[in-house]
């Protein structure tokens, strides 16, 4: 089945140690998003790619970066994780600007120790 896959499901990293989360999709959607979701809160958009064009949200910390080497893959890099970065990170995809087919992955739960 076409889907959005996130790896790993659970990630533990040390304070200040760079970590990368990955997302892949078989939907051939041209837009990919990264969201941060903290406990009992709504997902918060960090940034998105429209094809190769990167769009950063104004309030996304510089500590968060992203790469999209091809249509299928997108990575979230946290350069120096702090305790406040512990959260669920969700990847989503959609077809174009209308937002059709907006599909989420199962998320990666990040713990910072």
């Amino acid at each position: 089945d076409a889907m959005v896959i996130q790896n790993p499901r659970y990630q533990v990293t040390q304070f200040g140690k760079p970590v990368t989360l990955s997302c892949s999709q078989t939907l051939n959607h041209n837009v990919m998003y990264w969201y941060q979701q903290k406990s009992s809160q709504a997902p918060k958009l960090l940034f998105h790619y429209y094809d190769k064009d990167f769009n950063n949200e104004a309030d996304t910390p510089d500590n968060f970066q992203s790469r999209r080497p091809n249509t299928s893959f997108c990575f979230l890099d946290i350069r120096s994780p702090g305790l406040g970065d512990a959260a669920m990170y969700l990847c989503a995809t959609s077809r174009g600007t209308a937002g059709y087919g907006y599909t989420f992955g199962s998320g990666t739960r990040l713990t910072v120790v």
Partner: protein
Amino acid sequence: GESVGLHLPTLSVQEGDNSIINCAYSNSASDYFIWYKQESGKGPQFIIDIRSNMDKRQGQRVTVLLNKTVKHLSLQIAATQPGDSAVYFCAEKGQYTGANSKLTFGKGITLSVRP
């Protein structure tokens, strides 16, 4: 500023009853709305969507109603089952153009189904 919000943080219903989850939005230019269900430890799961040119849309056991006059969205779940227990989010998309296409989520509401 623009916001999408849910009226109540929790909702408890008896199994078999109908559930109604409400959502208010403030951006009158919003043209697309989605309801998501999120179970513990999982990503949001699409339930149903509606465009601003409609006021009602039905799916399997679910109905979404849109009232643009008062900027109100609701999700109705018929014959609520224990498997419906989850956090529900409404989300809206404004009339972005070009390369921008993103959703704004409201605060989640927890639906708890009593056996």
